[in-house]
């Protein structure tokens, strides 16, 4: 197990290095002079020179690269262009809102997916199964930038039950969380269903049934535990989908999270901020994946050997 974790950590450093490199080179992909684009054509030459100096764009690319990476290692993601604040501070300020939204979405997804998936698997091809699988198929195909507006029309405008903008109390969280969590719920319920069905067909389940255990006990105690391994992985992988889906959801609901910060950065052409946000989100994703993989390896010893 320790060897596996070591191996994964070495890989993690490599991947983070790659991510940092890609993010660094983003600013060099800008067609034309990045300084012109960031400050606009009307900017004074002195301002431009100052910015160029601040960003280190007057130095050779290699020097920039090294100083960027060493800055990242020290936790220095650069300075935001207009506000002149530290990028990392701006990001950390937004983290609680994003975290709240993700937890909400995850909670909704699990709340919907587990009952649906288990009920479907108990009576495959039954009525509940058909309905829930059809719903989840639509859920997978429904883009959240359409679901969000529809939820707003129905629950915020027509019925006036729930607030639909800005962050606030518990009720403000409901609509964004549903918007973000639906796709995950759909995916997850399908996964739970198929993985449960697979386990239910195995011999040790037949054995448990033959011993006269109640169906409820067979499913909840024996089958569930064994079918959860792939489900955990999917939950881990879906965090990535949530992270990027959150950008759109935050845009729909004016949610002051990381996604909005990224979009603001893009709209203001505040590239240090954009780089910082992308690096931060990608790193979180990498770490979540690492934890998922380690949990997976812990649950299923076969993985470690690969």
């Amino acid at each position, binding site marked *: 197990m320790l060897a596996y974790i070591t191996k994964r950590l070495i890989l993690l450093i490599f991947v983070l290095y790659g991510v940092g490199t890609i993010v660094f080179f983003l600013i060099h992909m800008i067609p034309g002079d990045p300084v012109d684009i960031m400050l606009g054509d009307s900017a004074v030459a002195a301002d431009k020179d100052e910015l160029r100096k601040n960003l280190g764009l007057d130095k050779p690319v290699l020097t920039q690269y090294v100083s960027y990476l060493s800055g990242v290692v020290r936790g220095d993601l650069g300075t935001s262009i207009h506000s002149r604040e530290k990028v990392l501070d701006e990001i950390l300020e937004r983290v609680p809102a994003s975290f709240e939204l993700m937890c909400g979405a995850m909670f909704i997804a699990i709340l919907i997916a587990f009952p649906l998936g288990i009920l479907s698997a108990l009576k495959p091809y039954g009525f509940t199964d058909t309905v829930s699988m059809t719903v989840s198929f639509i859920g997978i195909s429904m883009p959240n*930038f359409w679901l969000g*507006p529809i939820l707003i029309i129905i629950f915020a405008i027509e019925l006036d039950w729930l607030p639909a903008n800005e962050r606030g109390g518990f009720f403000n969280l409901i609509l964004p969380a549903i918007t973000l969590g639906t796709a995950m719920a759909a995916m997850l319920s399908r996964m739970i269903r198929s993985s449960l069905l697979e386990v239910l067909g195995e011999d040790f389940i037949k054995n448990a049934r033959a011993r006269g255990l109640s169906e409820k006990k067979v499913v909840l105690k024996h089958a569930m535990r064994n079918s959860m391994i792939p489900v955990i992985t999917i939950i881990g992988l879906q*965090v990535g989908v949530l992270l990027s889906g959150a950008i759109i959801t935050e845009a729909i609901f004016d949610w002051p999270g990381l996604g909005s910060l990224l979009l603001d950065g893009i709209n203001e052409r505040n590239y240090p901020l954009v780089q910082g946000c992308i690096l931060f989100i*990608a790193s979180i994703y*990498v770490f979540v994946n690492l934890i998922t993989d380690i949990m997976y390896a812990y649950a299923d010893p076969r993985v470690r050997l690969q």
Partner: protein
Amino acid sequence: MTLKNVFEKFTLSYLFGIVLALIIYIVDINLKISSVVLILSATLYSCTTYGKFHRYFLNKDEKTIVLFGFSIINLTIQILMMLIFIKVYPIEDPSKVILINIGVSVFVHPVIIFLSIILAEKQLIRKGFIKNEDIPNNKLKKDMGLFIVILFVVIALLAPLIATHDPKVINLPESLNTPTLDHIMGQDQNGSDIFSRIVHGARISLFTGLTVVFISSVVGIFLGLVSGFYGGLIDTVLMRIVDVLLAFPGLLLAIAIVAVMGPHILNVVIALSVLGWVSFARLVRGQVLAVKEREFVYAARTSGQSDLRVMFMHILPNIMSPVIVQATFSIAGVIIAESSLSFLGLGAPPGTPSWGLMLSEGTKELLDAPHVSIFPGAAIMLLVIAFNFIGDGLRDLLDPKTEKK
């Protein structure tokens, strides 16, 4: 169920809706009564259509009892759909009713027909009338998706002919007008015709989807083949690159690339292709590793032909099925991704009739004019569902477990 059959049924269904609407328009009876008549007749018609579908599977009378129950479910769904449409379009003049009916025919019928077939089949399996294997369910699913996709392709190709108005004409006095006979889906905040914009938007969505998947599958297949076939250093390097690219969740890298390169549809294609090849390469590599050790590959390698020929003539044809399935799902994913980017203002430049962009502009007017965002959203969803259907159907059809039949 051949594609031709499905096509016939849908054409009939559409024609029926349009004819019915015209009759009501000509007769001009009391609107409230007419809408009720419309609901009932449409339901009746769809029930008989489903009946035809069902008979295709059954050919025995005693099973129609089961189907009757599903007709009732269909009826409820249909009424609900009609109520939603009536809610969206408060009925003021007869043309609205026509609209409702056309809307129902075009968007709702296929879905309802499909759902009812699935429901009926599942019920029949459970009751033991038919076995699971007897149903060409996946083929139907695939044909259904294929039909919708072909419909959209035709629309995209013939966009200038089908569009009733110039999609870029701005007509501010008529902005946010609700649907009329002239503008069958209403007008957006600039007064442009939504229907025409959707028709032209099909071009953008299909272009992006097909181009990105084409580029990424070609690149991915080649790199995956080489990586899996030779192994060693090439494989290690390639897989590390894949690891790094996969470290960006979902759309993030595409957002980043488009953000620095500027909003343009070609930039979207580039950004999505940069990510797209990764999944193909991984899939192909895994498949190659599995096929590589089979004896026919050994035989090919010892026949004196070049490695490239062994890869493309012997290995590739044997791993194509999962690649095709993946490609289909990828098209759906790319269409959503393009719409998402456009929705965020990073995809198609402002003014372009891209569905995502239309939707994002529509959400600003959500309070006053929900129709502006509903139609493009429905279009995206329908196309995505269609590709997912094809993918789902193909996956089951090409699954080696079911291949034996």
